[in-house]
């Protein structure tokens, strides 16, 4: 009996143990096999932290490697309202430091939220003061801030970024992807106190910094161009204006200035008008500077020659419209060179009539009008140059003297650069190169220059344009630069407005030294007083050209631009 009872107890114990182990085994199977991946993820989520390492935005540099735009680390102040223990005292303590009102601050830190921005991208001193307060629920987080050390210098070219450092204008916008780089990731295991577990799992995916962009802009010439524009606006009341300074051989733009300007450090107080790079985006009727193309077309097509004697009246009827010269004069006998130098509308139209619509259109296209120049800048205007089939009876007359079609200041500058380069057309360029994360400088590729007129023709036109500044009959004597021969052309054109014309656009474009062109300068002033380009734009041209030539001479004496290697080193 006792043995049987003992056996039952043993059996029961064995069964209980078996069931118990069975439960444990089943649970183990469930945890280890069935639910393994979910639990692994849960465990990993508890101890692993993945941090995003933001890539440093690349810098934008002037041609000498000096920063025009650079990103630095700053702090942003935020609150976790759930952790704020004394909202009133916190708001009162923070308000004077952050330069904010107590009321709005109190409203923010009492919200039913776990995260509220209080002040973004504050100065180092402000961040230090906030940290010193040691307020519960008030935290600092690092962020990147875009700085523009040169202020408004070349601001329309460089552009600007938004709060999240996204490019919104200029080259900041155009090369946003290149500048932004690629964010990295760091995965680490942390203990309950948030410290990294030394022998825990970790993985790092390095952030790739954005590339730096080296511009062709020369800071000194850019500054002088901007200062000259400001003086022009002040002297003659020009509402706006643009200056382009270019090396005709390389087509590198050494300066691209616009007025009114803006300071990207104070974006809120600027308007959209001042942020526009007018030299590239704004259309206007260039006026008599277009006569340079008409002259080149006439000489290249052999329908005239510089010395040809022409009888020129002060008015001419074309397509039912009477075209007049700028002043009343009796019928004159002028050489074709003098026709251009004195900017005679009548004489120029007479040559255009020999050319015909098709040929005039063809040469305007060759010199880059009616299509984008290809400059590496966003939102370039292509201009308006209708095909000959759409021309009216008066179009030959108007277009040959630079009216009834529209171009941009950069198109005008590039057309003169084509002439200065002996008839070779090419794309203007603002980007000298980019420096990637590996420090290697890469120069952008551009199409090879195209010959659009013979070198001899370019030489003939250049000689004529030297007369514009040097000869008594010329309209651009104010553009003379002591010690240099300047080839240039004035242009005073009516300004198109809604329903007709109102005001004038004054242009002077030219290059120097005429016998070995090093620089092209184009000045456009919107509605100056006096209206004549020879008295306004030519003066500004002279100031900028003289400075730029002096700068070029000084740079010839010593290294102005560093080579690629040292540039790369300087930017890293």
């Amino acid at each position, binding site marked *: 009996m006792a043995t049987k009872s003992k056996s039952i107890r043993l059996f029961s114990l064995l069964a209980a143990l078996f069931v118990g182990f069975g439960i444990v085994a089943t649970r183990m199977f469930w945890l280890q096999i069935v639910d393994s991946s979910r639990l692994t993820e849960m465990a990993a989520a508890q101890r692993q932290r993945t941090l995003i390492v933001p890539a440093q935005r690349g810098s934008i540099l002037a041609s000498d490697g000096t*920063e025009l735009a650079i990103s*630095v680390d700053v702090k942003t102040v935020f609150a976790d309202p759930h952790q704020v223990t004394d909202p009133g005292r916190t708001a009162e303590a923070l308000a004077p430091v952050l330069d904010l009102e107590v009321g709005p601050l109190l409203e923010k830190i009492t919200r039913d939220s776990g995260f509220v921005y209080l002040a973004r991208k504050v100065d180092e001193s402000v961040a230090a003061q906030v940290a010193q307060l040691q307020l519960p629920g008030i935290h600092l987080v690092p962020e990147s801030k875009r700085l523009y*050390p040169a202020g408004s210098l070349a601001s329309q070219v460089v552009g600007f970024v938004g709060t999240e450092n996204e490019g919104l204008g200029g080259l900041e916008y155009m090369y946003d992807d290149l500048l932004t780089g690629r964010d990295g990731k760091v995965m680490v295991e942390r203990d309950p106190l948030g410290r990294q577990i030394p022998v825990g799992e970790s993985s790092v995916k390095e952030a790739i910094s954005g590339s730096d962009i080296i511009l062709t802009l020369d*800071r000194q010439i850019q*500054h002088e161009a901007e200062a000259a524009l400001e003086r022009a606006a002040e002297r003659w009341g020009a509402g706006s204006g643009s200056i382009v300074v270019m090396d005709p051989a390389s087509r590198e733009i050494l300066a691209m200035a616009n007025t009114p300007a803006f300071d990207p450090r104070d974006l809120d107080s600027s308007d959209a008008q001042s942020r526009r790079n007018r030299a590239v985006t704004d259309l206007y009727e260039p006026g008599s500077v277009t006569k340079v193309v008409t002259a080149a077309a006439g000489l290249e097509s052999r329908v005239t020659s510089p010395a040809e004697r022409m009888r020129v009246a002060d008015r001419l009827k074309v397509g039912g419209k009477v075209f007049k010269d700028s002043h009343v004069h009796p019928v004159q006998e002028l050489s074709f060179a003098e026709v251009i130098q004195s900017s005679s509308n009548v004489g120029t139209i007479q040559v255009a009539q020999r050319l015909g619509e098709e040929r005039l259109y063809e040469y305007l296209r060759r010199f880059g009008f009616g299509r984008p120049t290809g400059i590496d800048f966003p939102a370039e205007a292509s201009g308006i140059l209708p095909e000959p089939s759409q021309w009216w009876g008066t179009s030959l007359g108007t277009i040959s003297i630079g009216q009834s079609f529209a171009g941009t200041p950069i198109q005008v500058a590039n057309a003169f650069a084509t002439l200065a380069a002996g008839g070779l057309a090419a794309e203007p360029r603002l980007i000298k190169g980019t420096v990637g994360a590996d420090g290697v400088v890469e120069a952008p590729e551009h199409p090879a220059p195209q010959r659009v007129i013979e070198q001899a023709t370019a030489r003939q036109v250049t000689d004529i344009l030297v007369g514009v500044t040097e000869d008594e009959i010329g309209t651009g004597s104010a553009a003379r630069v002591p010690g240099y021969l300047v080839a240039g052309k004035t242009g005073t054109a009516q300004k198109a407005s809604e329903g007709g014309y109102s005001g004038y656009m004054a242009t002077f474009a030219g290059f120097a030294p005429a016998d070995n062109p090093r620089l092209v300068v184009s000045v456009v002033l919107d509605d100056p007083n006096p209206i004549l380009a020879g008295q306004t734009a030519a003066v500004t041209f002279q100031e900028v050209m003289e400075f730029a030539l002096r700068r070029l001479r000084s740079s010839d004496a010593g290294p102005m631009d560093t080579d690629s290697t040292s540039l790369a080193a300087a930017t890293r």
Partner: protein
Amino acid sequence: MAATKQAAAPARHYAPLPESPVRVVTSPVPAPRKAPSQRPASRPAARPARRSRVLPSVLLAGVVVFGLVLLNIYLAQTSFALSEVQSKVAEERSRQRQLRSEVAQAESPATVSQMAVELGLVVPVQLQQLD
């Protein structure tokens, strides 16, 4: 019968333990009752050998554990030091960029020309070319 069993028992079980002569000779009651008291008598001979193996093992284990703890501490310290250095490098990089920005600002033509004016420098009215 019982006496026979009791007498036979020591002969069968304890014959191999003559090294305890005192107990064999003086004990009035032989056999099973004495057996338990005789077992410890055989242990002193085995003790020195076991102690000689256990002690070094314990010491070795202790050294290993201590070494692992030290290694862990060292790794932790290195990790924290590395983390601090990395943080310092990042701070210095940031500072360098800040300084570059300040240098660029100080070098900007607008700043330089303003300083030049403040120092009384003027733009020459007339320029002369020397060659």
